[in-house]
């Protein structure tokens, strides 16, 4: 792993409009992702954790252009100087730079891509979905499912295609006998292998893993996790691993980003995060994991209540109604995601005091 940045997300927002009244007037927004910054380095596996409804899947899908962003920029594999130039223009530019900004964004920012450029991008960004029984077409043969991305991008045909599909199936631990079958003939773990083979078909650089093991049993989950780890090493892939299972994240990722109600709470290398979580939300999340050891004496922090409504998030720090360290400043002022050294970032007013 090097320090080259592959994906650079700046100030990303995704709002879903809520409409109401007789004329379906726009009355509010569901703030699914609200101003998120995240850098993903080449060759790393970054985990994105949080409770359901915190916007982790939305962030991932916006990154892949499966959803359109409301605001913000996403740079995928772009030269750093050009990104800086554009960012400078955006922050200090005046009206005369408008044309220049537009030109640069169309060139660099993947949220503005279209046509041929978008099609090329799709080859490099792939996704593995949560539940393999829903993400595979029940009426297609496995060889057609796995070959579909190749055919869609007109990369190969005929015998070459067949050979490529077989090769892909072999990389995920399936074989020639599985090519002429339908998805329903496979077990959950095998189906997820097929979904992974499909994601690998176009030689992507980046794969979004949207809870790939949450529908599987433990023994199968271990097989899939090992497979993903091996693939990453062999094919030099970058993963964004979305999950709510923290032990899985600990096993597979290098860095972890913790989200809550559409905001980044903490970004930190995995080992440090588990050793000493900085944000009170991360602390609660870690202590809530059931440890498979009956003699562990971890003190539980039990959060009260549910995640608030993202249409009308709490003022100030979004976590303050459930946080036991909350003071007045937390209610009024929203904390910035500040860099605290050794590659860690945290968004909390009081992180120093509560250690």
């Amino acid at each position, binding site marked *: 792993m090097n320090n080259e940045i592959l994906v650079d997300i700046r100030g990303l927002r995704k709002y879903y409009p809520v409409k109401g009244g007789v004329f379906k007037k726009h009355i509010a927004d569901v703030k699914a992702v609200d101003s998120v910054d995240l850098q993903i380095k080449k060759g790393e596996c970054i985990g994105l954790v949080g*409770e*359901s409804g915190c916007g982790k899947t939305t962030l991932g899908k916006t990154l892949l252009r499966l959803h359109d962003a409301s605001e913000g920029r996403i740079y995928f594999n772009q030269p750093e100087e050009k990104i800086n130039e554009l960012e400078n223009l955006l922050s200090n530019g005046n009206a005369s730079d408008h044309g220049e900004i537009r030109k640069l964004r169309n060139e660099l920012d993947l949220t503005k891509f279209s046509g041929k450029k978008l099609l090329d991008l799709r080859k490099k960004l792939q996704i593995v979905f949560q539940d393999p029984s829903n993400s595979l077409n029940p009426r297609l043969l496995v060889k057609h499912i796995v070959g579909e991305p190749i055919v869609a991008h007109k990369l190969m045909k005929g015998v070459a295609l067949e050979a490529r599909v077989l090769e892909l199936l072999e990389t995920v631990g399936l074989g020639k006998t599985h090519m002429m079958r339908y998805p329903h003939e496979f*077990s959950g*773990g*095998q189906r997820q292998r097929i979904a992974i083979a499909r994601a690998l078909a176009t030689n992507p650089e980046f794969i979004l893993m949207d809870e790939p093991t949450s529908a599987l*049993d*433990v*023994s*199968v*989950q*271990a*097989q899939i*996790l*090992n497979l993903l780890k091996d693939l990453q090493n062999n094919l030099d892939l970058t993963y964004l691993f979305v999950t*709510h*299972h*923290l*032990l*899985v994240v*600990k*096993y597979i990722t290098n860095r972890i980003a913790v989200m809550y109600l559409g905001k980044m709470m903490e970004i930190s290398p*995995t*080992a440090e995060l*588990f050793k000493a979580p900085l944000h009170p939300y991360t602390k*609660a*999340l870690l*202590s*809530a*994991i*059931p*440890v*498979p*050891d*009956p*003699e*562990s004496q971890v003190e*539980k922090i*039990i*959060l*009260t*209540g*549910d*995640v608030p409504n993202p249409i009308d998030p709490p003022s100030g720090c979004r976590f303050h109604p459930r946080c036991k360290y909350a003071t007045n400043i937390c209610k009024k002022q929203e904390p910035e995601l500040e860099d605290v050294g050794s590659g860690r970032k945290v968004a909390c007013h009081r992180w120093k005091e509560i250690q």
Partner: protein
Amino acid sequence: MEKLVEAEELRTNFYTFEGVVKALNGVSLVVNNGETYGLVGESGCGKSVSVRSMMRIVQAPGKIEEGKVVLFFNEKDRNKGIDILKRSEAYMQSIRGNDISMIFQEAGTALNPVLSIGFQVGESFLLHRRGEMIKLAVKTLDKKIDENSNSLFRMWRKFHKRLLQNETDDLERYKTEIVKIDSDLYRTEGKTDSKSLEKHKRLLVNRERLNKQGLKVRLQLKTPIIRRYVRRINAAVREKVIELLTDLGVPNPGNIVDRYPHELSGGMQQRIVISIALACNPTLLIADEPTSNLDVTIQAQILDLIRQLKKTQISSVLFITHDLGVVAEICDRVTVMYAGDTCETASVKDLFKEPMHPYTKGLLKSVPKGEIGEKLQTIPGTVPNLITPPSGCRFHPRCPDVMEICKSQKPEMLMMKDGHSVACHLYRKK
């Protein structure tokens, strides 16, 4: 420790078009009084089917072929059990939700979307605790009669009180009659001479025929305007429901009772399902993966709630899960299941410290424990198809220590040491 429920050699099959699915292959388990008992295994291993068989709610193509489920609920005589697989459906209905109740997986689908929360929680009060509810209604009526001096109102209320009294009398009659028949049934049960058999059959018919409500009550429940007195019972039930929800830590229960399931979050729905199960203070609570679809923080809340209830209200919990972390946290004793067989039963500490069955060992190794950089060990292969299960020990095709005997002979449950038993040929005495 005293036994509370014992299942012996349960065998349940599902008759599907593809063939007979042998879901349970002689499952035996014992839940003791006052413990939290865990049932672990991968999906499709028969965890849910075994508890459903124990509650006798296996659905249509499924059939309980043989076995026994013995309840030891009798306070006075602990040793005398009742085999509920032999009892009538009416008897089962009086037990379900009353003595044994169940929390189902996926609270969202367990609740009825078209009925309000208050109705769904109150249903078990109306079914199993009608007498108490009527008493409560009478009490509030008495208060109102004292307060109000308007003679017309007084008359109306006194009339309602009378109707409620009718119902109470009727319930009393039903109770005494049913107890009498049941004790007679118990006496004739198991006897083989023709006279006893005849009597047994007659008693069963009588039991089915016995109406819960007498003619008078049936009439007053059906006549318009007069039947409005039922609202007084419903008001009492509503109060009781609010009380129950407050106990379970549901915020703003007065508002929640009038809402519908889709308006609540997943954690809150699960709390409602738990409150339905707890309504009648059951002796045994069966929790079928109550937290598997919830977030970790909400899961921690729910587990904490069950642990608290265990201290205060219910005596035993049968907890089904596939998450070994949850098992370590909440259970006292665990049984590991694989493909319809029980592999190993032990106390939680023993199971995690020194697992004996090869499957348990493999399962424990494949759980990510959070060592960074560790390589997870896996169990090769997949769970077998239960229409054509492997011969002998059902785990043998995936077992690392497989021997010749495993392929032909089903291993028996061997008692290794106090409370730790395992079904594996490896541990057979030479």
